[in-house]
C-alpha cells in the first residue's frame, strides 16, 4: 500500500506533463537491418527528424503505401530527414523483409524487430504506423501517413504536413492521428 502511495506524486507529474502539452519521449533502441547491421535511434542525432515507420510485407494496407513511402523518402532525404522502416511482425522473416524492400525499391533502412520489442516500447499496434522523432527524442508526430488507403481518395497529407512544419521550425499542428491498418502480429 505504501509503495502505491509513493506512486501518487509520479502519477501527478506524468499527468501534469501530459496536460502541459509536453511531447512524449521516444526510448532509444538498437535493431539490425535485413543485412545484420545494427542501427540505433541515437545514431541519427544530426538528422532534423527521424521518421520511424512500422511496416509489413504481407499487409495490404501497408503495401498500399509502398509507393507513397518511397516518394516521401525521395522528397525529404536531402532535407535532413531520416526514414527507418521497422518490421515487427513475427511471421515475416528477415529474408522476406529484404526481398520485399528490394522488390518495392525501398532505399531507406528497414530494420527487423525480433519479438516486437520496439513495437511494444512505442506502443505501435498496426502497419503502417508512423512516429516522427526529434534529435532530442521527442515524438513530434504519431499516426498515419495520410487519410486514405487509396491514394486517389487522400485529402490530408498528415505526415508531409508534420515534416514541413518541423523543417520550417514550426510546431506540428496535428501531432496525433489514428493509424488504420493491419494489427502487428506479435509474439504471444
Amino acid at each position, binding site marked *: 500500500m505504501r509503495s502505491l502511495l509513493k506512486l501518487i506524486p509520479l502519477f501527478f507529474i506524468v499527468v501534469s506533463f501530459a496536460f502541459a502539452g509536453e511531447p512524449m519521449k521516444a526510448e532509444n533502441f538498437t535493431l539490425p537491418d535485413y543485412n545484420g547491421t545494427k542501427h540505433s535511434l541515437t545514431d541519427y542525432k544530426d538528422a532534423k527528424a527521424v521518421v520511424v515507420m512500422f511496416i509489413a510485407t504481407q*499487409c*495490404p*494496407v501497408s503495401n498500399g503505401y509502398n509507393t507513397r513511402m518511397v516518394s516521401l523518402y525521395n522528397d525529404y532525404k536531402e532535407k535532413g530527414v531520416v526514414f527507418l522502416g521497422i518490421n515487427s511482425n513475427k*511471421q515475416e522473416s528477415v529474408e522476406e523483409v529484404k526481398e520485399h524492400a528490394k522488390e518495392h525499391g525501398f532505399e531507406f533502412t528497414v530494420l527487423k524487430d525480433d519479438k516486437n520489442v520496439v513495437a511494444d516500447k512505442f506502443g505501435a*499496434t*498496426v502497419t503502417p504506423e508512423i512516429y516522427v522523432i526529434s534529435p532530442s527524442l521527442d515524438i513530434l508526430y504519431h499516426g*498515419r501517413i495520410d*487519410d*486514405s*488507403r*487509396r491514394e486517389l*481518395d487522400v*485529402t490530408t497529407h498528415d505526415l508531409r504536413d508534420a515534416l514541413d512544419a518541423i523543417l520550417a521550425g514550426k510546431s506540428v499542428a496535428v501531432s496525433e*492521428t*489514428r*493509424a*488504420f*491498418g*493491419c*494489427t502487428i*502480429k506479435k509474439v504471444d
Partner: protein
Amino acid sequence: MLSRIGCTLIVLLMLIATPIFPQHRGNPIRVTPIGLSGLDSLIHQRNGKILFLNIWATWCQPCVEEFPDIVKIHKRFADSLVDVAAISVDYPDEINSKILPFLISHKVHFPVFVSNVKKEDDFMDALNPSWRGAVPVTFIFDKKGTRRVFLFGEQNFGTFSAKVDSVLRMR
C-alpha cells in the same frame, strides 16, 4: 429415344457445371456495401434486439483466425434476441474476389456488409471515436442502439458469449 437421352445428358451436364455452394441454397450469402447512414440504421433500428457487430477484413490475420468463433456466436444466439452482423473493411470491389469466397468457406449465414465509407476516420468515429484503427474490433449495442461493449483485437468464443450474455442481462 435419342432425343430423350440427349435431354437427360444436357440436364446432367448443367447440374455438373453449376457451382455447388450448399449454404447458398435458400439462404444466399450477400455482401452489401454500407455507408454512414446505413451504419447508423444498422446500429439504431434494433427492433428489440441487441447487435453483435464484428469489424474485419480478409487481409487481417487475427480477424480470419477469430471468424469461426463469430460463426459459432451466431449459431449459439440464433433465434434469440441477438442480431449478429459483420462489416468488412476490404474494398467494395473485392466482394466477389475476396469476401464472398471467405464467407462461403466459413458457411456464414448472418448479414455481412462491406464499408464504402471513403475515410477510415469517419467510419471509426461512427462506431467509436476511441477506436485506434486496428482490426479486428467487435461491438455490442443494446436494444436502444447504445454501445455497451467494445472489444479490441482477436477474441474467442468464451469472451464473446460472456459479453453477449452480459448485455442481454442489462435492462
